[in-house]
């Protein structure tokens, strides 16, 4: 059985490091719909992929969060990218593969992947 001992090492390593995650106003929020409709359509692996990749690529300004039903159930899984000073981008019918594309193109390089956005449907 994995024990809680390892947590002590993590604490010692992290102690003193205050604010290792930038959650200021200039950050990008990536919102995943996680109500019954979203979960049924496959939002859980999309959410997991997004948070894993954001962590892996060290995108400190990006915060992945979840929300309830966005009200567009037939378009789920839905991912919204909210950047201060810019119009909200709504990606629909998301999959883990598409989520990786969104990270590489939109979150890293700032290019909206318009083939997956809502207004193209």
């Amino acid at each position, binding site marked *: *059985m*994995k024990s*809680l001992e*390892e*947590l*002590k090492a*993590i*604490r010692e*390593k*992290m*102690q003193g490091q205050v604010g*290792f*995650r930038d959650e200021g106003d200039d950050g990008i929020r990536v919102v995943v719909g*996680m*109500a*019954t409709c979203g*979960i*049924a359509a496959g939002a*859980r*692996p999309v*959410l*997991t992929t997004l*948070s894993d990749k954001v*962590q892996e690529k060290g995108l400190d300004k990006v915060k992945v*969060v*979840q929300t*309830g*039903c966005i*009200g567009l159930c037939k378009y789920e899984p839905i991912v919204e990218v909210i950047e201060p000073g810019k119009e909200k981008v709504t990606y629909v019918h998301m999959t883990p593969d598409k989520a990786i594309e969104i990270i590489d193109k939109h979150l890293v390089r700032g290019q909206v992947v318009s083939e997956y956005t809502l207004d193209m449907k």
Partner: protein
Amino acid sequence: MLPEISLNILDIAQNSIRAEADLIEISVLVDREADSLTVIINDDGCGMTAEQVASVEDPFFTTRSTRKIGLGVPFFRMAALITGGTFEITSEVSVGTKVKAVFVLSHIDRMPLGDINSSIHTLITYNTGIDFVYTYGFDGASFTLDTRQMREILGGVPLDSPEVSDYIKEYLDENKKETDGGAQL
């Protein structure tokens, strides 16, 4: 319809989160001898009146204002009942709500448990203001993850920091495997 038991658990726990629970206890207990898979979700949220409890199994009942349909509980209930299992909700205003679903393990219509660790990991790391006690049992063996214990050891280090998030993932994976020997459920 949610195709895995673990997705139903993720969905039902959202109700506890919306009910402003501070503590959510989730148990998944497999007993091959009794041919059962039992799921219990217990919260200390705002609870429901007797009238609300009576109507929550009805898909046309919801407390939301965005839409008039709530499918979470009816989906979970139906998934348990079609296996010949049982489903019950007990609740008390200001005390909390308990949902218990028993699935007949060997029934052909029992949906797979699915990636339960992913559901639990998602719940913990995306709701760091809430404590979770997760227990997984398989026949005689079991393990428990209690975020209150983790917080005590971690001091101020948040549960969603990358190092702790990875640790929780490994904790769930290793301990589940040791508990059920990697059984396909």
